[in-house]
Structures are given as structure tokens and as C-alpha cells.
């Protein structure tokens, strides 16, 4: 028998074995461990977010394990790097479902990645928890396995814009937006807010992702006589827009979404971004002025990773914390359905990070819809409102 024929026969046998292998009662749950999967971006365009989120998740799970685990079971996080590539995400989801037998997926990152991998995950009957994607299909229509924590941009930007216009009496509101789904989501929120107040969106202008020169857009908005500009930008473009406005002597109020609410914004922008308003869905963890619990947490994070935590680290940690608490409340007989039904009844109160309340119900799997306002004052973000409802 030739070697190739032997290999082919071995292949046939392995297919048979793979088919007849018995699945455990609850995938990913044994007496000793719970396997949790995450498909993140550790090497692609949003790796700057993916790495601290993963670090936050790992830190909280390791703390839970050090404290004895959840009902005696250690949590094992299996991290897959999609590089923001949907093809790799589909394969990563298959690996986590079949090879690692992941009980749940947590904090998967990026809309194309989430949209491509989510069907694989829920069709396999696994939990799809708190993905970093504003897409509505992550929680609607209601699905027993899908839970989302992050409000769509449209929802919280509507509240933030309305609050700003009412509080400051702006007459000529404008929008500078990234020319993609993110920018369009924000535009819908801004238009809805102004519509409710009976005011027009005086002007709007876009830029292509990655643009660094926004001088023509800023000149156009100045020419339109805007007294308030909403920025659907990320960090670099936020700094570019504010710097350009200040350079030409235009002192207009600007409000950026949570995507621009980052320590990098004031670190890069310096004096030019002083006074910028932003929307925060979780506060940045500054060591200065931190409460005792937060200060301890920052110390532990620094000791473990050798860098300061940022808002993304807090998000990862918070999501893992929600998982741990829900798994504990679900009891020692952990099942996927039991976890999901427990999460539907769970109220997560505000914590030392300054997070909002997260609340799910059997008819609503979006845990939070609100953001709060912050402003850069003296080189750091200061919270200036509570969560806007």
C-alpha cells in the first residue's frame, strides 16, 4: 500500500472519528474550567483598542481564578486574532466552537468581524456577549444568545447633541463626519436631536478614513457660520479638526463621539484640544484624583502590563467582571441557557470605574443606551454631566 493511500485511509478514519465524537453536556464547561473565546484585533487597524481590551479581560479572569474560580471552575480565555479580517474571523469562530469548545464568546471586535462570525457562533448554540460593534443586529431582533452592552452611536449622540444645544443655546449646528457606517450612524443621531428641537443641521461635511488634512472641511464649516460642530471622528482626525480651527482663529465649540474620547486626544492635541467636549460611555481611568479602589486597580494593571490602563482596558475588565458575576449567579450547574436567563435578570450597578448601570431583561438584550458628557480641561478629560437619558 502506498504512503499516499495510507494517508488517505487515515483521513477517512479521522473524518469518521470526528463525526462520532460525543459532545460534552455543556460545551466548554467541565468540573475544572469554563472556556471563553474572544475574536479580537491584535495586529490589524484597530489593534490599539484590541490589545488593552484583551488585557482587561485577562486581568479580571485571572483575578477570579486566583480567588478560587467560579464555583470551583477556572475561566480560560482563548484569544484569537482576526486582524480585522472577516475570513480569519469565521475560521477563528469555527476553531473556538469546535476545537476549544468555547462556552461563550465575549468582546469580539469590529463590525465586519462580528457580522461574519456571529452566525457561526449562535448557530452552534454559543453565547455571543458584548461585541465591539455598533451594529443593531448584535441585539435585534431579540435572540436568546445575543447580548450587547454598547449603545449604537445614534442613540447616545442624539441625547448628547440635544443636551448641548439646549444647554448652550447653539443656533447653527454642523457636523464633520467620517465617510463610513460610523459617520452615518452619528449623523442620524445628530439629525434626530436637532429634529426634536426644531432646528436644522446647518451644514455637514465628510472626510475619508485616514485623512490627516481637514483644512478644507473646517474652512467650509466656518464659512457656513457654525457655532457648534459635532465630530464623528476618531482620535487623529479630532486633533486635526480642533488644531485647524484654532490655527485659523475660529473659537467654535466641538463635541466628539466616544471614539474620540481617549487620553490620546489630549496627549496628541495638547493646548489645541483644550475645551473640546466629548461623550464618554465609560470614564478614562486617571490615576490622579482616583478613588482608592480605582487607584489600586491602576496599580495592579501597571504592575502586570508595565503600561498605564486606558478606557479600553476598563471596558475589557468590566465585561469580564460581568461574565464572572453572571456565571456565579447562574449556580454550579452552569448551562448556556441558564447563563443567558440569569443575565436577563441581572442588574449591574455602577462601580468604582464610574460605569453606567447595565440592565438586561427577557425582552431587551441591550444593556446600556446612555453616554455622559466630558470636556478637556487642563489637559485631561473631566466629566461634566451624569449619563444622559
Amino acid at each position, binding site marked *: 500500500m*502506498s504512503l*499516499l*493511500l495510507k*494517508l*488517505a485511509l*487515515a*483521513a*477517512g*478514519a*479521522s*473524518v469518521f472519528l*470526528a*463525526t462520532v465524537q460525543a459532545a460534552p453536556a455543556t460545551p466548554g464547561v467541565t468540573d475544572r474550567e469554563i472556556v471563553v473565546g474572544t475574536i479580537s484585533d*491584535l*495586529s490589524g487597524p484597530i*489593534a490599539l483598542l*484590541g*490589545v488593552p481590551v*484583551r488585557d482587561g479581560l*485577562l486581568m479580571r479572569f485571572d483575578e477570579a481564578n486566583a480567588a478560587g474560580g467560579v464555583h470551583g471552575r477556572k475561566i480560560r480565555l*482563548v*484569544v*484569537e*486574532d482576526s*486582524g480585522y479580517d*472577516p*475570513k*480569519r474571523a*469565521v*475560521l*477563528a469562530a*469555527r*476553531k473556538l*466552537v*469546535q*476545537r*476549544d469548545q468555547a462556552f461563550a464568546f465575549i468582546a469580539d471586535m469590529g*463590525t*465586519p468581524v462580528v*457580522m*461574519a462570525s456571529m*452566525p457561526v457562533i449562535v*448557530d452552534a448554540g454559543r453565547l455571543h456577549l458584548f461585541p465591539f460593534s455598533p451594529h443593531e*443586529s448584535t441585539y435585534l431582533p431579540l435572540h436568546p444568545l445575543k447580548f450587547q452592552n454598547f449603545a449604537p452611536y445614534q442613540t447616545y449622540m442624539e441625547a448628547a447633541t440635544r443636551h448641548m444645544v439646549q444647554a448652550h443655546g447653539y443656533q447653527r449646528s454642523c457636523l464633520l463626519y467620517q*465617510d*463610513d*457606517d*460610523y459617520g*452615518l450612524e452619528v449623523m442620524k443621531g445628530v439629525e434626530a436631536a436637532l429634529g426634536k428641537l426644531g432646528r436644522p443641521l446647518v451644514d455637514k461635511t465628510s472626510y475619508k478614513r485616514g485623512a490627516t488634512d481637514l483644512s478644507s472641511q473646517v474652512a467650509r464649516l466656518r464659512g457656513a457660520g457654525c457655532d457648534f460642530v459635532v465630530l464623528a471622528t476618531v482620535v487623529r482626525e479630532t486633533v486635526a479638526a480642533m488644531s485647524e480651527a484654532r490655527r485659523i482663529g475660529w473659537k467654535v465649540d466641538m463635541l466628539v463621539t466616544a471614539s474620540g474620547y481617549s487620553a490620546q486626544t489630549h496627549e496628541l492635541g495638547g493646548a489645541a484640544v483644550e475645551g473640546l467636549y466629548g461623550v464618554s460611555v465609560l470614564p478614562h481611568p486617571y490615576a490622579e484624583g482616583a478613588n482608592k479602589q480605582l487607584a489600586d486597580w491602576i496599580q495592579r494593571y501597571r504592575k502586570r502590563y508595565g503600561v498605564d490602563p486606558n478606557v479600553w482596558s476598563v471596558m475589557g475588565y468590566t465585561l469580564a467582571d460581568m461574565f464572572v458575576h453572571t456565571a456565579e449567579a447562574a449556580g454550579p450547574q452552569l448551562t448556556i441557557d441558564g447563563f443567558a436567563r440569569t443575565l436577563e435578570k441581572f442588574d449591574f450597578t455602577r462601580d468604582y470605574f464610574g460605569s453606567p448601570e447595565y440592565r438586561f431583561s427577557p425582552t431587551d438584550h441591550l444593556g446600556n443606551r446612555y453616554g455622559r458628557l466630558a470636556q478637556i480641561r487642563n489637559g485631561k478629560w473631566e466629566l461634566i454631566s451624569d449619563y444622559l437619558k
Partner: protein
Amino acid sequence: MTRTVRWRSVLSSAALLGLAILAFGADHALSQATLVATYALAGLGVVVVVGQAGQIALGQAALVGLGAYTEALLVSASVPSLLAIPVAAATAAAGGALASLPARRLGGLYFGMSTLAFALIVEEALVRWEPVTRGAAGLAVPALQLAGQAVDAPASQALVSVAALIGAMLLCARLFDSRLGRAWRAVREDEVAADACGIDPVRAKLLAFVVGGALSGVAGALYAHWIGFISPEQFGLMFSFELLMLAFIGGAQRLAGAAWGALVIVAIPQAISVLRDALPGELARSAGLETVVFGAVIVAVVLLRPRGLAGGR
């Protein structure tokens, strides 16, 4: 291809699949087989244009995108998949013809740059034509329907992809042996000499892009169904370079090059990911480890097999 060689290929493919199933599990391995075959189909387009006709194609992903979007839009308008796939191939072939037009006046790298510009225009058009394509928000694509059955299981998806790839490879083998195939190779080797021999280089290049576009269009149509969600950014320059890399790793001048290249591009990162799980704590958690190792593998392949895996030493 002799009968022995053909059997050897079939047996080695079966052995590879079996080993993959053993290593990854059935669904995971079959999903990889699906994507390997789909990428190989798209890579065949590059083999035709770059390997056979000797043209620089830096925007092949745009043709895959045209196929994917045509398929998604037609299926969402209730057009049967079996009818939609040929239309997707025709749209991408037309795109290929359009992309080849600058070849009448440009050559070499300058023509390559024009294909790059074509890809940028297609990506931008997909973003801007929002009423139809839903712009950057993307489109959800339902499962492929064949004979009233949804092709949504890993095994059936792999079967369809591999069947499509085999069909395309047989078609290409016939083409490469035909008068047109010889014309492509003549143009690749020396355009002026080919012209002097009575070959119309412009027509040969146009047909290479049409055939390459059609192959990539079919791949795009299948890709849309397998991934289930398409957005313009998925068909950007990164994907074009990935396809080009695929062809060169596999062997751009060989038919089997596309399949070998796709295997490296799709399956090696998965194998690295599985091996990484066996590494100790902090090393396993290093960000971008797969990318670094994958890069090293690519460099090794290029150094050790400069003519591609299918091209010999």
C-alpha cells in the same frame, strides 16, 4: 496531466484534508477547505493575468468585490443563485475588460498603477452608491441556495467550493493549452515579438483580464455567501495584495499555484494559531504573534521556492 499524477493529487488532497480534520476538527477543517478553494478560485484570476499574460494586476480584489456585490444584490432581489453566479462572473469580467483598457497605451508598472486606480475607484463607488450597496454599512448575504437547499453546512460549502475550483481549473487547463493560452505566454515573454508573429497583444491582454475577472467574480459570489456580510473595505488594496502574494507563493505560472498559494494564505495562519495555544503563558498572549510567524513563513517560502510552491526550485 497523466492519470497517475492526477490520482496522486487527489490522494494528497484527501490526506491533507484528513490531517486537517484530525488537527482542527471537522467543521473547522472543512471551513478552511471552503475558503482555500474560494481563494484559489480568485487566485486563478491572478494566475491568468499575471502568470500567463504577464501583466501587473494590483486591483484583483475589486473584481472579486464586483462579483460579491452583484451576487448579494441579485440574491436579495430573489434571483436564484444559479442564475446570479453567472451574472456575477459576467459583471466582474466586464470590470476586468474595463481595467484592461489602459493596457492599449500603458505597459509595465504604469499599467499596474492604472489597475490600482481602478480598484480604488470600484471601492469608492461601492461606498458612494449607497442607495444600492448600502455604502460602508455593508450588506448581509443569505446562504447559497442550490436546488431549494441552503448550502450553510461546512461540508456542503466545501463541496461547492471545491467543485467550482476543479471546474475552473479544468477550464483554465484547456485555455492554457489553446491558441489563446499560447498567445498570452507569447505576450508575457516578448510583446513586440508576439506582435510581429501576428498575435494581437491588446486583444490577448483584454481576454486575460476578462477570463481573470470572471474567475474572480465567481469567487466573489461564493465568498459573499460563505462570509455572510460584505462591505467595501473587505475588497480593498490589502485583499488585492493578498491575492498577488497568493499567486507568487503558489507559483504564478502554474495552474496548481493558486491552490498552493491559497493553502498557505488561508490555512497557515490557522495552523499557527493552533500551535500558539501550546506555547507557555505570556508568549502565547503576544499580540500579533501569528502575523510575525506568518511573515517569516512567507519569506522562507520565497527564499526556498522562488518560483512558487508549484513551480519547482
